[in-house]
């Protein structure tokens, strides 16, 4: 069994791996085996979804990558460039809930990662403005979280993740609690952002349709303990837009992913 470790390395190769998990398992203190062993490699700039039912360990995997928890065994490697700028943070995390500080304004919530890194104020202001503009929040900078709708709160959460200009964006069912109309709009905005900024995105979801719509690759997971059941590449010409949702191509991929998810085919590996 390998030493549990979360390594940090510099990757000179622009299309090389961004995240690599080798034989990773997680057993919680209560004795529950939540994950693994799993092997997973995510390339730089790739959009990958982890799809599975509740309790399949997909959130656990994300928390291990973020370094919020340590693996019980195996290695988690996150390849990140040498950080030279204060307030530059290579991993951004978006939780299922907006997870905002209710006691302060939208602007101050977005400022948090920079403040914790002691980034110089003027530079921080410019980056906050940019992140707010990217998420269409410029007019809401002085609002308090409680004054915003669920979708807007999630935009603030995204802006906060983007403000450090991360290479890797980890998203834990970020749109699960939103209504469908808002979710579709945020899906499109996220895709546009990903196209413009070319971040590596690892997106956890329990929606087949969302995973197929967004990602280049869907990792289907099974529960207790969480294992990878299938990997399905979504090879559709970019850029995707709303009409992809109603295409035959899309329906075909959704069927394929759903079949991989069905409990009658445990451990099946699709090409």
């Amino acid at each position, binding site marked *: 069994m390998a030493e549990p470790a979360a390594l940090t390395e510099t990757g000179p190769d622009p299309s090389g791996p961004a995240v690599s998990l080798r034989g990773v398992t997680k057993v919680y203190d209560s004795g529950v085996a939540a994950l693994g062993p799993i092997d997973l490699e995510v390339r730089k700039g790739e959009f990958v979804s982890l799809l599975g039912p509740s309790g399949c360990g997909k959130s656990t995997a994300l928390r291990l990558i*973020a370094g919020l928890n340590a693996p019980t065994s195996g290695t988690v490697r996150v390849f990140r460039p040498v950080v030279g700028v204060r307030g530059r943070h290579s991993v951004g995390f978006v939780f299922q809930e907006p997870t905002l500080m209710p006691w302060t304004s939208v602007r101050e919530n977005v400022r948090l990662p920079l403040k914790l890194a002691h980034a110089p104020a003027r530079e921080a202001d410019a980056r906050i403005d940019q992140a707010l503009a990217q998420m269409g929040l410029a007019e809401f900078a002085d609002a308090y979280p409680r004054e915003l709708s669920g979708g807007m709160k999630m935009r603030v959460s995204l802006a906060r993740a983007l403000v450090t200009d991360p290479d890797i964006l980890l998203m834990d069912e970020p749109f699960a609690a939103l209504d469908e109309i808002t979710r579709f709009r945020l899906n499109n905005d996220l895709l546009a952002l990903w196209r413009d900024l070319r971040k590596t995105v690892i997106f956890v979801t329990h929606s087949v349709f969302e995973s197929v719509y967004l990602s280049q690759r869907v990792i289907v997971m099974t529960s207790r303990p969480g294992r990878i059941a299938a990997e399905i590449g979504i090879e559709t010409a970019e850029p995707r837009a709303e009409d992809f949702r109603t295409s035959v191509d899309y329906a075909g991929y959704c069927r394929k992913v759903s079949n991989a998810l069905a409990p009658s085919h445990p451990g099946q590996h699709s090409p």
Partner: protein
Amino acid sequence: MSSLQTPPLTAAQATPDSRTLRLVRILLPVAVLAVGIAAWELVVRLNHFPPYVLPAPSAVFVTLVADWPVLSQSLLTTLLTTLEGFTAAAIGGVALALLFNQSKWLEYSLFPYAVILQVTPVIAIAPLLLIYLPQQTAVIVCAWIVGFFPVLSNTTLGLNSVDRNLAGLFSLYGASRLQTLRFLKLPAALPFILGGLRIAGGLSLIGAVVAEIAAGSAGAGSGLAYRIAESGYRLNIPRMFAALLLLSAAGIVIYGLLALTSHLVLRRWHESALGKEN
């Protein structure tokens, strides 16, 4: 000819409902007070009770005005004691909670004693304190003992109820202990701390009064509680009532000020300070 048309409700007609309700909520207790005082006055006059048995409200009021120089001095003394005890309780309670939050060992070793201090009736501790401490200090310590526990336990509760994901976010961005405390734990605990302070305000007054009464026989104190005890010995019942009136007014003002502070601090974000329509 009769018409069955109902007149449309104008805005002016629609709103009075809530405004009337608010007025009623203020006027009703005032009316009850007025009726109570009138009945009291009537009972005393009709039965010709002497003032040392039961003074009429008018006699209490006259005493309040006539004895104002003495009573106001006592009021000031009691308020000062309460303020000092309250300040010590606020600082001590928050500081101790912060220490407990930083070190579990400290919490495990000391928290039981905080509980013991809280559950032992202060009126039983006061005479002991008066033996070992100068009187003024003993009175303040009494006010502190009863006031600090709600601040301590509320602050502890607040510091421990930080959103788990927000705490994760702070650790993800490499926040130091001090940053986590300053930017996350303290703001998150603020509503709880303010709630604790609101309780501590009233309790500090009680602590001060208890200690003044316990010290009363020593004769040096000049607070309102001491006035009550002294007036009792002299059968100056109207003055007892007047001093009691001032004490209760002081308690109401302290509570009101702390509730107002809490509202002003939290009004932009906390559920407790928001209107019901939100």
